[in-house]
């Protein structure tokens, strides 16, 4: 077997499973190396950086366990299955099948991307305060005036998502500013809008129904307590 045949699956798995821990330079070069290889490779459910109960009382252990081990896991499983089908369609040059798979890829791929980002932008209450100075504070103040206004605006947009979707804080590389945005279903922020995701808030009912029933505003208000602001800032400085 050639070096590429041995290294590629392992490297691909490393890139996908631990992409948040790789430096941007390494991810980019790994992606370039892999881009000549066929699609896919096995994606895996990332471990949470904390216990299921770590985000209580904002989000219960019960919710975290079902959300992570069932919902996110299903996206990963179905993404892998869709990518396998895509490999087959690409190899046989079946354009119609390639196009037909786009819905499942967006849904399951988006679900995997979004949830991976989500777990990492959460942490135990008290684990991360919003910084009073630095790049994140500057960006928030420039766009919203102050952090409380940002929470109010982003919160309102996020609560207002019709049906299933996500609220996002994103970075616009063209303007150099941060923006608040929402996306429906599992549509991933960057592929859909071009904004680099900094902070995601899941408002699919499965994210909050056990703890808050239909009262989505209470969930969105509570989630501010468990945001990992240093992770948000790290994503911003990487993107700037």
């Amino acid at each position, binding site marked *: 077997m050639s070096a590429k045949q041995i290294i590629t699956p392992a490297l691909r798995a490393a890139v996908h499973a631990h992409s948040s821990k790789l430096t941007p330079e390494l991810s980019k070069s790994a992606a370039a190396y892999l881009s000549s290889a066929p699609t896919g490779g096995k994606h895996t459910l990332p471990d949470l950086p904390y216990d299921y109960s770590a985000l209580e009382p904002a989000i219960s252990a019960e919710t975290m366990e*079902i959300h992570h081990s*069932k*919902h996110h896991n*299903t996206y990963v499983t179905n993404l892998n299955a869709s990518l396998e089908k895509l490999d087959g369609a690409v190899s046989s040059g079946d354009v119609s099948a390639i196009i037909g798979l786009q*819905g499942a890829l967006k*849904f399951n791929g988006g679900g995997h991307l979004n949830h991976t980002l989500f777990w990492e932008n959460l942490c135990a209450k008290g684990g991360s305060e919003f910084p009073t100075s630095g790049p994140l504070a500057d960006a928030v103040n420039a766009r919203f005036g102050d952090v409380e206004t940002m929470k109010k605006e982003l919160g309102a947009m996020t609560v207002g998502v*019709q*049906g*299933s*979707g996500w609220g996002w804080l994103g970075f616009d590389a063209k303007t150099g500013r941060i923006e608040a945005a929402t996306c*429906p*279903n*599992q549509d991933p922020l960057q592929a859909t809008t071009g904004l680099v995701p900094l902070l995601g808030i899941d408002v*699919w*009912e*499965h994210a909050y*129904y*056990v703890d808050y*029933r*239909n009262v989505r505003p209470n969930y969105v208000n509570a989630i501010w307590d468990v945001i990992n602001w240093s992770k948000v800032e790290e994503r911003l400085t990487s993107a700037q």
Partner: protein
Amino acid sequence: MITRFTLLFTLATSVAAGATYELPPLPYGKSGLKPMLGSKTLEIHHDKHHAKYVNTMNSLVEGTNLENQSLEKIVRSSYKKNQALFNNAAQAWNHSFYWKCMKKRGGGEPPAGSKLADAINDSFGSYDEFRKQFSEAANTAFGSGWAWLVCNRKGKLSVCKTIGADNPMVSTSAGIPILTCDVWEHAYYLDYQNLRPNYIDVFLDKLVNWEYVSENLERAMDSGLCAEL
């Protein structure tokens, strides 16, 4: 002798009396569909979700020319014209319809030899094929949505799915809805968590109110009208 004043007064009060849509009660009560759907589920789904759509719709039509129109009229008029009103009016319609599509000890196949059973066989080949298509639609409505059985004027049935508040009466030309299943997560989360397929199976095997579906079929074929809600 009916004076002009009396006539105007009568008209005014009858218009005002029909001004708002009232949240219909659950046909079977909160505990009526246990253990398929729990009482907490029905309570929150009906008293919170459905009620909110109804109240929001009523406040949005107040003082407009849609104020004393039927629910169906409001849905059709707002489609693609007023998204906020449509989201609430269509969800009010969809939920009122959904409750009636279920009953205690329902589900299974419609009575053999009935007009409905014949229509299913003609349109799908068999009940099993209908069940397969309906399950697939319900399970693959990515996100929040609904699965539907619709009927056109010629009695041809088909299955479709919609996202959000969409209703095939406006969003397709396939026909009139005669059966629906709510697959927004709030419809099943407390009882089934992420296991939507289990909820769909239970809906089809234990809950579908085929008598109501038959009435809707007759009405759709006779007059092309949706169920009265």
